[in-house]
């Protein structure tokens, strides 16, 4: 049989939480070709931010993506602070990093749940999201927001932590670590999960390098890049980050990498809390930013996040360019999809951790 049919995936499809359109040509049950259409969530943020002041933009950039909201403002604030020549107090840097790591835990657990749902494993979805609530609770307690936190300001953070909170948070982090380890155990041993994810969506290290892929997808193929260790921004210079690596390059390896990263993040959170210095959490920042340009990088849950900021001396940015990690892995989808079964489309797409709001901006 050589007749091809076209399956539309999206913009509205249960597999996708956000709109994105894939036209997938199928021969029998095998994928022959795929075409991607982005832009359903394109809000023109890079243009819109030029009409807002640096402080208003904090609010906007937090909403580039609702999952990794804190790391967006981290990269943005870090860039603006560099332009201003501000030295953020150590306590502020620690708290900023703490939120980044909590966000990573929440993002990875969220992803694990979505993968579970996409391969028909409802229970994993329920358990991962139940455990994720612990991380959300801690973030809510610190900042007042479950998903967007408004924790970062230019010059530091506007959150602080008291002694009682310290103990309760450490206690809950330990609890969460045990739960994540249990989930990791399931990933390692559950046979149907392995049957669905092993050998699917393979990317070789060479492909990763050629497509400039970042984050857990790259690390699952054995490409060792992690800005937390390589760039040592925020408080990461004071920590020892163990980078989780795998070499299989398939969706299963990505699952493992993400689960191990979540455990490592919880460990980092404890390190950050124990070494939390005394002092102020922020310094005052002027409204106007001197002319100049800066490239600010941070490691989002999905990989390298790049902000390019140029100031012309006014209180509004002249140009801000955001490159989100999802865009890098979207390029590889076409290659990953070629030749897989139609049933595995959902596995491949969830494997790269789609965040269309990030990719479209």
């Amino acid at each position, binding site marked *: 049989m050589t007749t091809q049919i*076209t399956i*539309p995936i999206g913009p509205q499809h249960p597999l996708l939480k956000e709109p994105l359109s894939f036209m997938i040509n199928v021969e029998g049950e095998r994928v022959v070709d795929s075409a991607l259409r982005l832009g359903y969530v394109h809000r023109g943020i890079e243009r819109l931010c030029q009409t807002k002041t640096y402080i208003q933009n904090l609010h906007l950039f937090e909403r580039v993506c609702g999952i990794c909201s804190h790391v967006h403002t981290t990269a943005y604030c870090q860039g603006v602070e560099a332009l201003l020549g501000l030295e953020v107090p150590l306590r502020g840097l620690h708290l900023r990093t703490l939120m980044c790591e909590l966000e990573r835990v929440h993002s990875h657990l969220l992803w694990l749940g979505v993968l579970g749902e996409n391969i028909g494993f409802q229970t994993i979805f329920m358990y991962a999201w139940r455990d994720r609530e612990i991380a959300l609770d801690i973030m809510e307690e610190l900042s007042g927001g479950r998903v967007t936190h408004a924790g970062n300001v230019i010059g530091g953070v506007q959150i602080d932590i008291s002694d009682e909170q310290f103990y309760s948070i450490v206690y809950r982090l330990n609890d969460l670590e045990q739960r994540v380890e249990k989930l990791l155990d399931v990933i390692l041993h559950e046979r149907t999960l392995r049957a669905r994810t092993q050998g699917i969506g393979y990317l070789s290290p060479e492909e990763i390098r050629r497509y400039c892929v970042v984050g857990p997808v790259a690390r699952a193929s054995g490409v060792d890049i992690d800005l937390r260790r390589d760039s040592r921004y925020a408080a990461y210079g004071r920590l020892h980050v163990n980078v989780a690596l795998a070499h299989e390059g398939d969706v299963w390896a990505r699952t493992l990498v993400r689960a191990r990263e979540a455990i490592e993040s919880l460990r980092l959170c404890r390190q950050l809390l124990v070494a939390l210095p005394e002092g102020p959490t922020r310094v005052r920042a002027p409204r106007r930013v001197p002319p100049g340009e800066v490239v600010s990088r941070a490691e989002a849950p999905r990989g390298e996040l790049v902000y390019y900021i140029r100031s012309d001396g006014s209180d509004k940015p002249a140009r801000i360019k955001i490159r989100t990690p999802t865009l890098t892995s979207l390029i590889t989808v076409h290659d990953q999809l070629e030749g897989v079964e139609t049933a595995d489309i959902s596995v491949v797409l969830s494997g790269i951790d789609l965040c269309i709001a990030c990719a479209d901006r």
Partner: protein
Amino acid sequence: MTDLLDALAKLLLFPGFAFLFACAMLFAWIDRRVIARLQGRVGPPWFQPLADWIKLLAKEDVLPVGANEWACTMLPIFSLAAVLAASVYIPVGGWSIQAFEGDLIVVLFLLSIPPLAYFLGGWATGGVYSVIGGNRSLLQYFSYEVPFLMALCSPAILSGSWSIAQIAARQSETIWGVFLQPLGFVLAVVGLIGKLKRVPFDIPKAKSEIVAGPLTEFSGRKLALWHLSIETKTVVGIFLLVNAFLGGSGVTGLLPPPVTFAVKSMLVLLLLSVTSVLYARLRIDQLANLGWRVLAPLALLQIAVTVWIGVR
């Protein structure tokens, strides 16, 4: 006249269609509730399946342009009718509406009609997801049906009768099929999961892949009938397994027959619910492999052993 009334009451009320409908709602609720509890949730209230059903009945009934309206109306009815017809021959807690020597075969035959209606339903609406779902359901049908049939043959061979009531009676006198033929029971349960399209064999209606499979374009009353047909099929399938492997309503001790039967049915339902919590959905080729490389040979082995025992 009284005979006729009696027969009608049996057919329509108990243990006929009304009873089956009530069971379908009850089983659907228990199933959802058990799954929810195992996933750490609360789950729906007891009237949930009924509310869903009434709501669907009262909703607008639309079909996409290009769908075959006649087929789309008739297929859910066919499917439901086949299940109801099968239920007539299955003894429930000691009562049965109809029985004759060989009704097992009739039931098995009638139970294989709904998958075909399901497949045709996918083609009749004509949506992409529906057609793919329909094709998958047919492929799946080929994978589970043979092991399922062979697994249900062995209790019949062992008890020397093709009547469901006879098989159940023989087992409750001697020893339950599940102890004598554990392999056969496992195969029958796996086959039943495939028949009911439950996780891990919910391939034809895989939500994240093809939306809702053949039912994607159905709405309103037709969807309600499809749901009812699937829910009654669950009940009939469970009752069949209870009769064929667990000794039916046979008295095992102190409990009266209807209670025994109810307890056994609940056990099988629990088994189905727990299985659907424990596994991820398989791929269609993985299911075909499982069906033909593992289940079918095992079923053959099972029959061979049964015949050998029967001869001795």
